[in-house]
């Protein structure tokens, strides 16, 4: 069978699994429904990997393209939906699927008791979530992308509020749902504008039609609106407020998926839509796109890092670290070079493993001690050396320590960004050091009891006493999957940076991804895209040194913080920034509107 035929399978297989679990889940024992969920997720991962292997095969040849229902266009214009297995999209689908398998294994022993009469509902929702994310990664159709965008949203809202016994998960899920739905409306509005102009919904078709005329206000509005929704998903400043509220309260396995891949798919969406639709002469000029994303990316990275450092609630700390890393990803996309894209892709790959592993370790703490507060846990986890080691390794990898995948991604991206503005590498070093330092600080305090016991500052609200272990009762012995999964994820992240074949495959993926004409020809004309000859991303001396520098800085920051907790806690200067994260959905919506206007102002020069 043609490999392209496997593309719809990547979406359909998990959906079938979800339907089977929803129907039969009530009669299946826990073990059987978990096994069934894992089997469907693994089958999806296998087909995604097969497509990836075919797409990533070096040498000439088009990547797999499949018109669903056989509606291949005649004479360049068609009526159907296309799925495109280019190496980057297929790679993301594979990443999503593998992480879902890891998450299902992790949750094997995680939840105490599934909802009565609905044993299969948790794995079923996870599978729907997987289908939404995979579909979003491989679709070549803008409206179809919107459908999958909404699908992953709906599944994620429900999963975030999964623990209904407490009010906070529901509130977090509500903020998540409201803000993301508004973003989705903006995207839909943008899609209708593009459809009104071109009469097309496929990315390649819209791009071609737009390029027959010059850009105008409609094109600008379409770009701003479509991008707004995607940036909400990517949690870019000022659209990011929902993320910490949702990530802090979602069940740990769900956090692994939200932070590990879902947020990054927003960044992917921005890059995909720009390169296929707006990168031509009829779209938005490159400097305007670069400026807009650079401004948002830098703001996101800095704000995320500043907030990350000030958190004592571990899940919130990791959530803000995700925000700040998303900022770095946006910068990598903003520079509009193949190197930027492949660097970011490597960074996302490495980050997914590391961040999911860190959340997994936090989940162990939550289930053992019924709290994830850094101060309350001080020195209490001395008896968990393995988890502590994993947490520390995760923190170091987050700083960009070579040879982790996150380190290689950071090195390649910061070099690409350095060509656009000389000071950007410094930002990468600073942000990685602060976020990694925050994780190391927490790890030192919790697992080693290092330094002085931090005292609660005046007026600082408690973050303790309201967590309930997700396993029902506190864990005595740590079940094997809760440790094996983070260990495997960190190993995978290490492999991504250490195996040169991965880097060269990602390099090729980035080159194909940024070849606008090649994409359109492959999709619409069935002609093979020429493989661009670019040196594959690899470790360079500067990158290694900067990675070591940010790791060293992070260790120094962490050491300073545990020694002098009072001086390094929560600077009064940043109080207004902290107050913005108010938990009030109205605030978040206001910022969403303001962000749309900001994006407009930044991109207006792009249509002249």
């Amino acid at each position: 069978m043609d490999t392209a035929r496997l593309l719809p399978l990547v979406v359909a297989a998990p959906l079938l699994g979800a339907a089977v679990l929803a129907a039969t889940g009530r009669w299946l024992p826990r073990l059987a429904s978990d096994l069934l969920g894992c089997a469907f997720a693994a089958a999806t991962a296998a087909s995604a990997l097969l497509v990836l292997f075919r797409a990533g095969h070096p040498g000439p040849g088009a990547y797999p393209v499949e018109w669903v229902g056989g509606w291949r266009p005649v004479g360049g214009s068609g009526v159907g939906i296309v799925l495109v297995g280019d190496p980057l999209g297929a790679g993301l689908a594979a990443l999503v699927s593998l992480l879902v398998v890891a998450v299902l294994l992790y949750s094997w022993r995680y939840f105490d008791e599934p909802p009565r009469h609905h044993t299969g509902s948790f794995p079923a929702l996870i599978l729907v979530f997987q289908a939404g994310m995979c579909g979003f990664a491989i679709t070549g159709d803008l409206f179809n992308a919107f459908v999958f965008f909404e699908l992953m949203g709906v599944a994620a809202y429900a999963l975030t509020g999964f623990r209904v016994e407490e009010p906070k998960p529901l509130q977090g899920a509500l903020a998540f749902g409201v803000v993301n739905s508004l973003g989705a409306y903006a995207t839909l509005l943008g899609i209708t504008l593009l459809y009104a102009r071109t009469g097309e919904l496929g990315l390649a078709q819209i791009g071609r039609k737009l390029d027959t005329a010059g850009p105008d206000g409609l094109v600008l509005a379409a770009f701003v609106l479509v991008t707004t929704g995607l940036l909400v998903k990517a949690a870019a400043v000022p659209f990011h407020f929902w993320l910490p509220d949702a990530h802090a309260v979602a069940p740990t396995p769900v956090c692994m998926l939200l932070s590990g891949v879902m947020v990054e798919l927003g960044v992917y969406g921005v890059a995909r839509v720009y390169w296929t639709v707006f990168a031509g002469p009829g779209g938005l000029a490159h400097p305007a796109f670069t400026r807009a994303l650079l401004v948002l990316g830098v703001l996101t990275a800095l704000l995320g890092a500043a907030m990350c450092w000030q958190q004592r609630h571990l899940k919130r700390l990791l959530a803000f670290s995700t925000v700040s890393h998303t900022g770095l990803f946006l910068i990598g996309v903003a520079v509009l070079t193949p190197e930027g894209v492949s660097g970011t892709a490597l960074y996302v790959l490495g980050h997914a493993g590391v961040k999911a592993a860190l959340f997994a370790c936090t989940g162990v703490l939550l289930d053992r001690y019924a709290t994830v507060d850094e101060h309350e846990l001080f020195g209490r986890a001395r008896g968990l050396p393995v988890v502590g080691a994993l947490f520390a390794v995760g923190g170091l990898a987050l700083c960009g320590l070579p040879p982790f995948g996150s380190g290689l991604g950071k090195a390649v991206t910061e070099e690409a960004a350095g060509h656009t503005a000389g000071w950007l590498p410094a930002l990468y070093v600073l942000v990685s050091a602060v976020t990694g330092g925050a994780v190391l600080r927490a790890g030192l305090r919790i697992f080693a009891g290092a330094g002085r016991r931090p005292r609660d500052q005046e007026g600082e609200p408690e973050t303790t006493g309201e967590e309930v272990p997700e396993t029902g009762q506190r864990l005595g012995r740590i079940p094997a999957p809760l440790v094996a999964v983070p260990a495997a994820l960190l190993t995978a992240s290490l492999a991504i940076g250490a195996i040169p074949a991965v880097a060269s495959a990602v390099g090729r993926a980035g080159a194909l991804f940024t070849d606008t004409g090649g994409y359109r020809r492959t999709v619409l004309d069935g002609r093979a895209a020429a493989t661009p000859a670019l040196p594959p991303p690899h470790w360079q001396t500067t990158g290694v040194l900067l990675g070591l520098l940010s790791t060293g800085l992070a260790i120094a920051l962490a050491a300073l913080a545990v020694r002098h907790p009072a001086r390094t806690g929560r600077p009064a200067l940043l109080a207004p920034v902290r107050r913005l994260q108010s938990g009030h959905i109205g605030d978040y919506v206001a910022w969403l509107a303001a962000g749309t206007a900001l994006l407009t102002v930044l991109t207006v020069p792009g249509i002249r």
Partner: protein
Amino acid sequence: MSFRFRLWVFLVGAAGFAVLFAVACFGLPAFGSGHHPYGVRAVRASLNHHTANVIASVNFDLRAFDTLGEETILFAAVLGAVVLLRQTQDERRKTPEPAVVHPRVRRFALLTLPLALLVGLYVIAHGQISPGGGFQGGVVTATALHLLYVASDYRALERVRPLTVYEIGEAAGEAAYVVTGFAAVLAGSAFLANVLPFGTLATLSSGGTVPLLNAAIGLEVASGVVVLLARFLDQAVEIEEPGEDEESGDPREIEKPRESQGPGKPRESEEPRGCGRPKESEGPEASGASRDDDNRDDKRE
């Protein structure tokens, strides 16, 4: 953020958005022009496949993959509602009391019920020929069943509504759509390809796989809406919150709860809240209100 500051941030953003959108509208094609590139192609493709209802053709043939996603959104939403509205450990279930219904209301509802049911099934079955289809017909069918609640009471509804059957029906509708797609692959064509004979235009059997997919969606939507309404009705009619009833026993359970969590948002959102007015809280109070037992009585005479 204070109310005033929030309003300003929003107004500035909204003004920017208004300008952007107004400018965009001037770039739209003129109203009433004859230029409909996709429409022309879709009508041609739909007639080639002998599907009289072009909308159905777009939904279930040309862009059937979108519809799979949309169907799944409903599926996921219902699954999510089932999970979120489940009976928690500190909630108790009570038997709904029989209600007195005015004979005229009862007669009307019992008369309309079979009619509405028939219309729903008709709309599902004729999706390929006339306006309608699985989504619309499914909702009508599900609504028809709930006329029994209007005609009698909740216990009567529960008798014709074995939830397990509908939950399985919903999953079966979802699975049927996917399996129809796979069947096309097994027949050597693309996923969700219209591989069946197209039949005679404007007859019940026309359109190839369109009626099948319509039926799958109809099953999914009808069952899904029944399950969804059941979850909300359960919360309103049957499930009691801890503390709602004096006899509910364990005082610790009464303490636990939702009201005590106070205004608004994650206390854990460790930021001091400058604007914590209880009125504005979205979370617990809202859900508390929806569980109010009394709203049922309002419907009754």
